[in-house]
């Protein structure tokens, strides 16, 4: 498989990462397009046989952060927009729980959110995530831990405020049914 085919194969993952970072499907696709253009124009820099997904993710996050610095206010307002913009999949999990989760995710600092997504959803090891983020492995681990702790706090607080303290316990028990 040549580099170009490899690149195209990674597009769904690139989109998923972009959505997790930006919280907004439209913005995510803009990010993906910019990243693809940059990747394409520097495809010769890609070393065949190395991790295309990691390479693309690195490019995308650089695009995201340079946009992010310019449009800080938009990100701080991501909360309500995020919940409104993303489709939900009720299925086994209550509608409100997934919306709550996404809203909570949007509240995390971007570096914590991306660390969690990289190791918890995109399938990277801590080391790979560290390379993508340009930081130490220990930094990735502590960001992931802080992300998880913060989410835990936000989700428990949110559900007990709205539904009483047993709500999240019930949701957790329900989703654990085989």
């Amino acid at each position, binding site marked *: 498989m040549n580099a170009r085919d490899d690149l195209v194969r990674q597009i769904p993952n690139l989109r998923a990462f972009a959505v997790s970072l930006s919280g907004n499907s439209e913005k995510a696709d803009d990010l993906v397009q910019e990243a693809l253009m940059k990747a394409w124009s520097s495809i010769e820099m890609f070393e065949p046989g190395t991790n295309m997904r990691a390479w693309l993710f690195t490019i995308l996050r650089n695009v995201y952060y340079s946009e992010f610095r310019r449009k800080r206010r938009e990100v701080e307002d991501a909360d309500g927009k995020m919940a409104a913009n993303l489709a939900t999949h009720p299925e086994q999990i209550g509608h409100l*729980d997934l919306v709550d989760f996404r809203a909570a995710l949007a509240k995390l600092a971007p570096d914590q959110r991306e660390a969690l997504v990289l190791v918890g959803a995109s399938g990277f090891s801590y080391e790979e995530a560290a390379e993508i983020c340009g930081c130490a492995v220990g930094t990735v681990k502590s960001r992931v831990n802080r992300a998880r702790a913060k989410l835990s706090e936000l*989700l428990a607080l949110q559900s007990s405020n709205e539904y009483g303290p047993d709500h999240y316990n019930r949701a*957790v028990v329900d989703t654990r049914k085989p």
Partner: protein
Amino acid sequence: MTEPTHDSGGDDDPMQDLIGRQLRLMYDSVLSEPIPESIIDLLAKLDSIPVPEDTNGEGDAEHQ
């Protein structure tokens, strides 16, 4: 090597299990979407730009 290399997903903490599941659900839902028109169009445009043919070096063992 006892140092974990991958996220363990919170082991048996129900809240962390929930977080892990929600995260993957959210991520996977985008993963399974078809690629939007706008990106397909972009790829077509990029394709018309000459690119070094095979940067891979090895032969194409699989086509498509």
